[in-house]
């Protein structure tokens, strides 16, 4: 082995590598500057938008408007093997202060007692509902309703995956707007009002999303967010910073250009008819949330419609993130495959004559920086390590490049913290800000690289066509945010099952 390595090192040292090495370094440097510059630009667009938004909505200057003017919304809650959390989730949704809504839980062929738990908790009985299969789904075995909870219904169906479950829910909902919520998410009483507001303000809006935040470290009482905090462990703490970056400028920056390509599957509001018109959610992708938005853009642009897909910076949904490396890895591999599938199957949007900012800016950005990014990053890491081991990269150069990478990473993270401070300032204590800063520094030493490797692996899986047909993601969660003895009976600490694809 040693002889082999020595031979490789010798050949590297005696070849004309100087120029090749310099060229490679330039490529990585240009890519590195381009990606960070692009993120910084997005960051400043977001900052402008957030300041404007907060100026208008920070305080309740006006007495609340007449609530009857808010359109009714159907909440679709797809569930597969969620016996431990689904009842508490529905109770949490029932506490929303939105004036008129219904909840349609879709039991997607659960093999545990999800269906029975719902029937028992809400007194559901099978009703002869004239179900309209406007979107093709796996067989619907029955629709259940409750006399005690008239807002709650359940669709019981054969397992078909998350997309199939949402499609069945859409077939069943009654209102023109529907909201998809993951069964393990915690909302705030005003979440729905906040995300529905763009529909009231602008008749062109077809979809609206909000910020998803990390639940780990927070306290939830009676199904509602009681106290915002930071997680005690490193892995979820890194994800807090990641979510801030992803939502506060990764999404918010695209919204004013009408180029938002993703609304999180964990929480989003859509015009039902518009979604049905494009055939609902695709069942053969793990990135159904991104795919839906990209197809909406494509379809509406082809039809030359004036439309808006918008994003509000309000923290509307809180989700528990993975606390162990294996779950996190599975999640990221899955997200990357979802991204690849969504981009590839809608490649026609890119540089399309009618593509607008979505086709000419956001799509190429996603392709170059999000899809190809992990490949370039991993190749960069590997070549740097190999060359350093071969003695071809002096320690000084290695350290300078490392410092530049860390500096850029930190700057982006601190910018996201600044946006959080300008908007909702949820991490209220200066000590929390300092802790977030420490996390923003430390994530550059291992976490980011690990993430790039997972995403690289996800891209490889997609490229090689090695698709696993698990249609529901499974993630171990610790559930330590629950602070209600009564609810702990229904929501114990080992929750799992996660369907949303992206943060």
């Amino acid at each position, binding site marked *: 082995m040693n002889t082999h390595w020595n031979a490789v090192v010798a050949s590297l040292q005696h070849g004309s590598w100087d120029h090749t090495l310099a060229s490679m370094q330039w490529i990585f440097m240009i890519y590195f500057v381009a990606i960070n510059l692009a993120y910084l630009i997005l960051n400043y667009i977001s900052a402008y938008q957030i300041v404007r938004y907060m100026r208008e909505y920070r305080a309740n*200057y006006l007495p609340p408007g007449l609530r009857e003017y808010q359109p009714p919304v159907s909440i679709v809650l797809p569930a597969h093997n969620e016996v431990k959390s689904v009842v508490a989730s529905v109770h949490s949704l029932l506490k929303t202060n939105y004036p008129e809504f219904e909840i349609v839980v879709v039991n997607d062929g659960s093999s545990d007692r999800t269906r029975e738990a719902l029937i028992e908790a809400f007194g559901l009985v099978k009703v002869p509902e004239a179900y309209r299969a406007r979107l093709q789904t796996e067989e619907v075995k029955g629709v259940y309703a409750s006399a005690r909870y008239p807002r709650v219904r359940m669709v019981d169906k054969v397992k078909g995956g998350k997309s199939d479950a949402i499609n069945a829910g859409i077939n069943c909902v009654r209102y023109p707007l529907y909201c998809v919520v993951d069964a393990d998410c915690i909302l705030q009483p005003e979440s729905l009002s906040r995300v529905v507001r763009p529909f009231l303000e602008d008749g062109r809006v077809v979809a609206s999303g909000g910020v998803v935040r990390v639940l780990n470290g927070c306290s939830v009482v009676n199904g509602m967010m009681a106290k915002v905090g930071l997680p005690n462990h490193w892995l979820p703490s890194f994800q807090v910073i990641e979510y801030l970056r992803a939502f506060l400028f990764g999404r918010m920056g695209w919204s004013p250009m009408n180029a938002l390509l993703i609304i999180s599957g964990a929480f989003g509001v859509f015009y039902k008819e518009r979604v049905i018109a494009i055939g609902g959610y695709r069942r053969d992708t793990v990135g159904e949330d991104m795919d839906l938005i990209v197809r909406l853009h494509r379809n509406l642009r082809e039809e030359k419609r004036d439309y808006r897909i918008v994003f509000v910076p309000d923290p509307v949904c809180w989700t528990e993130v993975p606390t162990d490396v294996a779950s996190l890895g599975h999640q990221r591999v899955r997200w990357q495959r979802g991204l690849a599938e969504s981009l590839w199957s809608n490649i026609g949007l890119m540089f399309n004559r009618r593509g607008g900012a979505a086709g000419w800016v956001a799509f190429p950005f996603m392709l170059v920086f999000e899809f190809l990014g992990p490949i370039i990053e991993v190749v960069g890491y590997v070549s740097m390590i190999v060359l350093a081991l071969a003695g071809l990269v002096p320690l000084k150069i290695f350290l300078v490049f490392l410092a530049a990478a860390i500096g850029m990473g930190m700057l982006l993270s601190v910018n996201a913290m600044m946006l959080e401070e300008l908007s909702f300032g949820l991490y209220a204590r200066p000590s929390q800000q300092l802790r977030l800063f420490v996390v923003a520094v430390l994530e550059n030493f291992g976490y980011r690289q690990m993430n790039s490797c997972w995403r690289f692996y996800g891209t490889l899986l997609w490229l090689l066509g090695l698709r696993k047909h698990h249609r529901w993601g499974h993630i171990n969660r610790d559930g330590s945010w629950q602070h209600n003895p009564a609810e702990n009976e229904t929501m114990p600490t080992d929750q799992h099952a996660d369907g949303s694809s992206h943060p």
Partner: protein
Amino acid sequence: MEIPASGATLLTVAYWVAVLTLLLAFSLLTVIVFLRARSQRRELRDKRAQQHWLQVMRHVLAGEEVQVRALGNDDVAGFIEAWNATHESLSEPDSARLLPLGHRVGLVGAARRMLKGNYHDRAMAIMALGHLRDHGVFDELVPFLNDRSPIVSLCAAHALGKVDPPQAMAMFVPMIMQREDWMPGNVARILARNEDGSAVRELDNALLRANTSTVVKLVRFMADIDPGHAAGVIRQLLDSSIDDHAISVCLQLVSDKQDRERVAGFLGASRWHVRMHAASALGRIGEAADAQRLEPLLADQVWWVRYRAAQALLALPGMGTAALRQMQQRQSDAYGRDIIDQVLSEHDMGVVV
């Protein structure tokens, strides 16, 4: 190992990127911590002032004599928060009992200064002056009605409506047709708070000048604040040849039994949403005899029309579960039978959709 010339340039670039980004990151962190600390200090100060003034207002409302000082800089934000919140929770006569307090602490002067401040201060000050109902500030508030921000302009409409309702409504109502950015719920709340009838009068005038798209908006507001008056307008609109969307809205608002025949005329409309709303309307105002008119809709090709028709049939006077079951036996169409099953089961369970 020697570094080539291009490599040296690259190293310099990387070096400066590292230095600048690290410097910027640390500077931003300092700004964040400073902003956080300042905001916490302000929040604490305003909270204290707010609690103090809420206490004072409670004493005033209880009829006690309270010694107060003029508002200082540290007091203004807290006082105005407390002032606005208290007025919102009070009835009109109780709210009037607080007015002398506002004058004694010099609210007009303090709020005027805030009108020149930032966005938040401006909106809060406009609301506070509205609650004070001082005619002297009316002209100062009028320009804010045209503010580009929907929040500031609606705050101004709200405030003006408190100071001088007739004059305010004369300005506000015509603007409803132009301001697409005004949330209907907030407009409705401002109109609903008008008690001297000027809102209805102005809406009536505006309706005469409205086009097809704006008429729908205005009729909705009218139906909220004066259903009787709105019924006449709705009748006229249903008799005129307006578009399907406007007809649908009018059908949703119909509540007068004398419009039965008029509504029944839309059961055969070509657009399904008109048929659906006509069926629902007939369910609200219809009589037993209307069952014959609704029955054919049970076989309509659109689910929503069948569903609303079945619900309307069940709601008709004299038409109970048994009668609807009998009607179900007569249906040759399977969809018609299914929809009756669904509606009856929902009815049994008390589900209202």
